[in-house]
């Protein structure tokens, strides 16, 4: 009998290996939980890695307060169901001082409500390792990132000076205040994630499935009507059959027109897709090399 793993099984084995290495070698690991499909997969892998025990780290959600209502509902229900310890951190001070995406623009808003909030939460928890669900196929600067991505005591990434990473031997050594961002899904593609969700029957936020939703149609973009999004002159809300391909904050996450209301239909749609996953994410395009810059500053 040929003993060959399928592509998904091989990815799963690799990711579980990474999760266990981190749990074994770091003092205080934490898992960044963004509620999206990649987080759902990452959590399932963590459940498998430490079965029958619970996974030995908490989940951390950086809540900008601009997430979809359905995301927050899903988060609370899901974490309660699986018995995970969830920490929610929000940059209250910035919000109190009036930070919002409409006034500040996306770059500054992300800087305060996501990057700053994340760095503060890491420091507050004394975490020396944080799992993230980012994948290398998502964006060009991510293609260069290590599985173990070293961050200095300011939380910054230096892409030109990354630690060599060979075989499955990861370097987990950090000094006080430094940390490692760990990406167990580095080698997964968007299609792999959906195929795994189907295979494993993993729950995801309903926003991924198509149904008629109230949207502002702005050029080719579909912007969800939530959080008092300011309308341009002449714009009005329309009911559009659509779904989210990736999830973020509502003002920066466009929907796509789609009829795919099941995982199987999403996979079929993806095979036909000719547009990239993060195209609808405003923050990736706010300036040249923008994801690389955000990552250098400590964003995921």
């Amino acid at each position, binding site marked *: 009998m040929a003993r*060959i793993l399928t592509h998904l099984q091989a990815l799963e084995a690799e990711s579980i290996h990474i999760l266990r*290495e981190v749990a074994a070698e770091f003092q205080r690991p934490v898992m960044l939980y963004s509620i999206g499909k990649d987080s759902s997969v990452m959590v399932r892998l963590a459940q498998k890695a430490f079965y029958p*025990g619970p996974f030995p780290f908490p989940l951390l959600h950086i809540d900008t307060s601009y997430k979809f209502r359905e995301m927050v509902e899903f988060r609370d229900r899901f974490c309660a169901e699986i018995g995970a310890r969830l920490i929610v951190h929000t940059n209250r001070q910035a919000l109190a001082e009036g930070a919002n995406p409409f006034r500040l623009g996306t770059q500054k808003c992300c800087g305060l409500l996501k990057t700053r909030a994340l760095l503060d939460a890491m420091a507050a928890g004394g975490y020396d390792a944080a799992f993230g669900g980012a994948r*290398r196929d998502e964006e060009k600067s991510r*293609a*260069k990132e290590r599985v173990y991505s070293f961050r200095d005591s300011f939380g910054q990434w230096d892409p030109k000076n990354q630690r060599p990473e*060979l*075989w499955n031997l990861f370097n987990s050594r950090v000094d006080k205040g430094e940390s490692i961002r760990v990406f167990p899904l580095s080698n997964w593609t968007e299609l792999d994630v959906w195929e795994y969700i189907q295979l494993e029957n993993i729950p995801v936020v309903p926003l991924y499935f198509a149904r008629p939703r109230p949207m502002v149609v702005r050029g080719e973009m579909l912007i969800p009507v939530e959080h008092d999004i300011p309308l341009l002159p002449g714009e009005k809300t329309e009911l559009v059959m659509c779904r989210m391909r990736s999830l973020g904050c509502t003002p920066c996450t466009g929907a796509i027109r789609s009829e795919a209301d099941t995982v199987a239909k999403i996979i079929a749609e993806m095979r036909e897709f000719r*547009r990239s996953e993060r195209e609808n994410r405003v923050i990736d395009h706010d300036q040249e090399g923008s994801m690389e810059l955000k990552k250098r500053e400590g964003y995921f």
Partner: protein
Amino acid sequence: MDDGKSTLIGRLLYDSQTVYEDQLAGIRKATKAHGGLDLSLLTDGLRAEREQGITIDVAYRYFSTPRRKFIIADTPGHEQYTRNMATGASTAELAIVLIDARHGVLAQSRRHAFIATLLGIRHLAIAVNKMDLVEYREEVFTAICEDFRAFVGQIGNPPDLQFIPVSALCGDNVVTRSKRMPWYSGPALLEYLETVSIAPEKHEVGFRLPVQYVIRPNQDFRGIAGQLASGVIRPGDPVVVLPSGRETRVRSIVTREGELAEAFAPMSVTVCLDEEVDVSRGDMLVSPQDRPERALRFEATLVWMNEKAASAVRPFLLKHTTQTLPARIVEIRHRIDIHTLGAQPADELRLNEIGAVLVEAQRPIFVDPYRRNRFTGSFILLDALTNETVGAGMIERAAAENFDVAARSAAISIENNPEVLWMLARRLVENGQRVVVVSNQLLHVGPEGILPVVELSFNADALADNSARAVDRIFQELTGRGVIAQN
């Protein structure tokens, strides 16, 4: 850039329809200035790389065809990035070596082939690129093939070779077979990638499970978690725990979806054992019939990755499988000239240099030669002060233990026979030796401080058919080595 690597990868992605429309629009915008579609822009990563037009670091690209899924480690070709190339090669099953048809087999191509082979890649696709610039002439291609074959012939354990004439720019023989080279009857590059047999590496060593983590949610469950480095395991199979040497059996293989009847490399599993033997991270479960070599010192090929040169003076941390321990380079045997493969005398290895070294670990580790198993045969060296990963090594073999230094103390462990242990202890005491018995190991700290210790391990049952004779044999061994004098 110069040999067209980015264009080739861009072409593979583009022609296999892995490129999204918005990404294409992005590069159309960027190439509008000089017309045509510059596919090399698809693989651009970091700002510094775009600014300098070179690849600095490994980038990973993903594409799939209906037949296979591919992960491309896109590595820089320049000599100053040898370490990045080694990084990319460490997890690859196949390497594509790109040769510019106009320039033939350059030092660089030889270096690429050597590093790929060194890191254990068994298949090389040699894409002779820019055939359009040599009028698609067969003799250019043939000459390059011959040249390259001659070089690879000098490498020990040479990989399989597949030569393909291509033009990444024009798309010849990349995804579809070209009509412009009717003299070539082989597959296009993608065709080859889709069909080459990458049968799982023959597991030439037996079952190996480096222990990553012990799962103990309650008193009733104790699972040994890890990723199989090699072999197959089933419930009921006997296993040996290293380094303790305790033998036990696998009771079950546990997963969230139920118990497994069998697990094989490279699965990540959780194994429950028959008895409550002492097992912790860094240990390894192995098959009793086929054990790895025990090595305090081992010969290895080392790729140096740090600005500060490797020398026999600095102490390092060694990470091997799931354990990290102090180690040092005892001797740099020689540096390997990566162009000629010749050995050069050397006192140190500088950044991007490769050499043969003798490494000593603070305590024995269990290894397989790298060519037989990548996971139990590889290691990295870390700088304890800066925390950097400074070297990556491939183990050739365990070195014979060195008894040049007269040891005056012995750490003796006796497997599975306490009677022999106590009889030996009594005999040693009668002989005037001081003896310290520790439950699982013997330590000796004399009045002079820590004395040289030889580590000897005896399997009493294998040594002799009765206990008294086993003690005789061990006693003889100790006198023979000069550890003790017979009074």
